[in-house]
Every structure is written in C-alpha cells, then in structure tokens.
C-alpha cells in the first residue's frame, strides 16, 4: 500500500503539533530554565518542518501519485487475510496466553499460520508441536523465561 507523500506530511504535521502541545504541559524543572519538555518540543518542531516539506512535495506530485495506491496483493483477498492473520495472531496471543498458557496458544497460532501458508495438515501439526516444544525448552528450561503455563499448570514439567 503506497500513500501520497502529502498524506504522510499532513499526518506528521498533526502528530508533531500534538506532541508539542502535550509536551508544553510538562512541569519545568525547579531552578532550571529548561525542563523535560525541551527535547520533545525540538523533535516536534523538526517533524513539523519535515511534514510541511512532504505535504508540499506530495501536493506537487498529486497528478502522478494518487492519494492511495493499493498494491497488487491488496486485491487478492487470500493474501489480505494472511496478512491480517499475523497481527491478529499476535493480538490473540497477547490476550489469551496468560489463561491458556504458552504451549497451547503457540501450538494453535503455529498450526493456523502453517495451514494458511498451505502446508499439509499432518505436517502442520507435526511442525507446530515440535517447534513449540523446542522453543519452550530453550526459553523456559535453559533461559528461565517464565512462559505462562496457563491451563497446563497441573501437569507442568
């Protein structure tokens, strides 16, 4: 998905103004002329200049560059679904991993993604199980990362 530079320019301009406005509310450091707001305000100012330049450039090129140009893949519904599945899968993990536990959640995530990438069902299941167990062993056993057990707590190994 390609957007005209002006779209980014305007978005950056709004963002930088919000940053500056919000940073101005930070309290000044006692006894100093400069507080925690100085650096964010400078960054916001520079971003605003870049935003203006991009807007100007995008506007000048508006004939050759449409506001939004969807890539070829965006017309392919299957691909859009696969693409959306990646953030959706991560959000799913964030929401349920504590309850379900790492092993079931990761297994489910891997299996669904592998199937979506057209790997055969049995192979998908096998790969998902082996990968989950290997990653779990590396991180939970050797690196002592407290991956959540969730539902499997009673049988934790």
């Amino acid at each position, binding site marked *: 998905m390609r957007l005209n530079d002006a779209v980014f320019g305007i978005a950056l301009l709004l963002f930088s103004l919000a940053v500056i406005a919000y940073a101005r509310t930070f309290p000044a450091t006692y006894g100093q002329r400069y507080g925690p707001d100085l650096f964010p305000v400078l960054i916001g100012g520079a971003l605003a200049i870049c935003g203006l330049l991009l807007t100007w450039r995008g506007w000048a090129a508006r004939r050759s560059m449409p506001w939004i140009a969807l890539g070829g893949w965006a017309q392919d519904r299957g691909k859009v679904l696969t693409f959306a599945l990646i953030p959706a899968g991560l959000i799913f993990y964030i929401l349920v991993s504590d309850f379900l536990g790492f092993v079931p959640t990761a297994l489910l*995530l891997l299996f669904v993604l592998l199937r979506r990438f057209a790997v055969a069902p049995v192979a998908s299941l096998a790969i998902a199980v082996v990968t989950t167990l290997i990653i779990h062993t590396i991180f939970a056993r050797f690196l002592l990362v407290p991956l959540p057990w969730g539902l499997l707590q009673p049988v934790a190994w």
Partner: protein
Amino acid sequence: MMDIFLTALGLIFTPYVLLVMLGAALFGLFVGSIPGLTATMATALLVPITFFMDPVPAIAAIVTTVAMAIFAGDIPGCLLRIPGTPASAAYADEAHAMTLKGQAEKALGTSLVCAVIGGLIGSLVLATTAPLLAEFAIQFSSFEYFWLACLGLSCAVMISTGSMVKGAVSLLIGLFISTIGIDITAGYPRFTFGSVEMMGGISFIPAMIGMFAVSEVLRYVASSHEKLQVPQQSIGNIFRGLGPVLGRYKLNLLRGGVIGTAIGILPGAGADIAAWVAYAVSKKCSREPEKFGSGHVEGLVDAGCANNAGLSGAWVPAIVFGIPGDSITAIVIGVLYMKGMNPGPTVFLNQPELIYAVFVAFFLANIALLPLGFLAIKLARQVLRMPQPVLMPIILLFCLVGAFAINNTVFGISIMLVLGLLAYVMEENGFPIAPTILGIVLGAMLEDNFMSSMIKSDGDLMGFFSRPIALVLGIVTLSIWFLPPVIRALRAMKVSRSSW
C-alpha cells in the same frame, strides 16, 4: 598490555564461548543463505538469547553470526541470482553469470576466500585504530558527545537510500520513541498516558525485533513467490584454480578491504553500501571494464572483500564513541548498554580485556568462516530447498517469545507488533528504517548530553562551540545540514538568472 591480551584470549578460548560461537556460526550461515532473511534479522532474532549470556559470549555470538550471514548471502546470489542478504546484491548478477558459464565453484570459492580476507583486514583496522581513537576521545565532554551524536545521526540520514526528508522523518520518529518514559534529567514521566509499563520506556529489543523481523515476515506475506529453482549441478572443489585469481587481484583485495572498512566506519553506511561502492570502484579502475557483468571475477574480489570488511569497520565508532556505523552495530550498542559495558572511551580503561576479547572474537570468526563457509556451500542445495512457508510462522513465534523474554510481559509483544507494522508501512513508502533504530538507541544519549550541555552553559548556545574539538565537530555538522540546500538554492538562482 600483553597480560590484557592473554586475559582476552582466555575469555574467548573457553569451551562455552567456542560452542556458542559455533552455534551462532551455523545459525548465521543458515539465515544468510536463505533469500529474504537478512543478517540484521539474524541479529535481531539472536539478541533475546544473548540477553541471558555474559558480555563476551553474547558479543562473540553476534560477531560470528553476522560475519557468517554476510558471506552466506553470496551463495543464493551465485546459484539463483537472488542475494541472500542485501550486502550481496551488488554482485549477485556477476556471480550468477559465472555460474551460467559453469564457473560456480570459482565464484563461490572467490567469494569465500575474499570474505575471509576482507573480514581479517577489517578486524585488523578495528583492533589497531579503536584503542588509539579511544585515547583521543577520553578528553571529550558532553559538548563533543552531543555533536558526535548529531554528526552520526546526520550521516545516517544523508546516506540512507531515497529521499533525505524521509530519512529525517525516520530518525525523528526514533528520537521521539526514545523520549517515551521517565525523563532522565527531571524524572518526569513523558507520553506514558498513565501506563506503568510505558514508564520504563520503549524497550529496545522488542522494538528492534518488530522493525527488523516482524516487518520482514509481513513483507514476505504481501509479496508473491515462486518456488526457488535450485540448480542441479553439483559443486566440486571450490578452491581449485583460486591461487592465480588471488595472485592476479591482490591489489583488489587490499582495495576492497580498505574501502569496505572506511565505509563501515561512516555512521549509517554498512556492508551493502560498501559492496556497491567497491564494485563500482573495481569496474572503474579495471583494465578490462568491458568484461564486468558477463561473469568476470574481478568485481567479486573487491566487493566480496568489502562487505565483510565493512562489518568490522562499523564497530570502530560503535565502541569508541557509542555511535553505530550501521543497523547491526546499533543493535550491538543496545546490547552493550544492557550488559553494563557502556560503549565509549572509558570502557577501554575500565574493561580493556572485554574489548580485546571482542577483537579476538572478530579474528576467530573470520578464520572459522573458511571451513564453515565451505561446509555451507556443500550443503547449499539442501538448505535452499527448505520450504519458506514453513519458516515464516516459526520466525514469528521466535520473535514473540524474544519480545516477551526481556521484561516477561506481553507489553513487549505489543511494542513489537506496533513497530513491526510501522516499519512495514514506512518501508513500503520509501522511509528507511535504520535511522529509526539509531534514533531509539541514541536518543537518550543525545538528550542527556544536550541537556547537560545546556545546563553547563546556562542556555548559551555559543557554549556548544566553546571547546576546540566541539567547534570543529559543530561546524562540520552544521555544514552537513545547511550546505546542500544553500548550494542547491545558489544553483537554482544561477539557472534562473542565465535563463532570464
């Protein structure tokens, strides 16, 4: 001096560190030889694991992985005309043309030996110049560091591919991200919106995994793929007939190594740019430039040497000043901070054995590249047949666990996801992402030096030019910012006047 060196040797030559380096080497060779997986991604995936190691094995693992991955990128470039990493793109056509002429062995052998020699030249420059520079840098105060950080970041914007405004936007986004969390000078929580997890700031590891690994997975999904056609011809003795090639082009070897190291030292330019420049210089200086592009080995010598030399070069500003030379050393600087080995000249005084251990790791990794690279070439056909759809979900799970493991909260995964999507949109629209990572890593140091300089000089901006080195650095930085637009404006005026 000698005892420091011996201590450093002792730190590297332990069974544990050597085993870690071997594992890292195999990982690097694997990731580098698969098209679409880059050396930077290999580093990003490795960092969560090194997080749990001591400084020396952690750094040795990164050094080894990257050196191996950059060479391994040549293998699919040669056999399939698809560079395994961007650093091999400069000469993938040339190497593939040699394969078509039935000279795959010669091309791969040259790439391997030149990578080893280039890596050793770069390591030598690193080990000799870094301590000297550190002695000089010890006199620097916050003014000099402020300008150095500005200079490094400006170079990163200048050199980044595409439009300079977009490079600047990318950098500023990174700097903004670095301001989130508790402010270092006053202790005030900025842009946290009341969230306790945001107060700690945006952790750099999930950010980097998102920008370099998750965005790659997204890009893979969005692009179209054909099954790789792995050539059937078997690869014989890659070292046959290599002697005459190296003898004939020994000057090219040296030139490639020097160009690569020099470009690596420049902040913002890494192995890929080093390879392009070395290849172009090789063609320009060659006695037979007409043969370039038709499967001629000369350009391969220069560029294959340069990209591996560039890797070591990038470490010079990284460990002496804490200013990264490329996106990989930006990651390394983040790792060094986490390991309490804050980069800068003082590390040469306080922990010289650690720095020398890093140098030893560089030499060892590049020497080990010879046998391990040979093995990788032998196994290349099997590795390239590995179905990519299987790899992508596995990489995603690795990212997820890596982002979680740093603070043991799912907040890390959220950071990774948001920045992964951001990096994908940015890259699609021509915004380079390396400056963002540099901004995130250097933001705190830049602000810290800026604020302490402002407080020291009591707000007087002339204070930034009050010391001789600061004055020079300041003038160089300001001229990088303001000279190009001024020259452009003058030229435009001249044109309009002459047409008028």
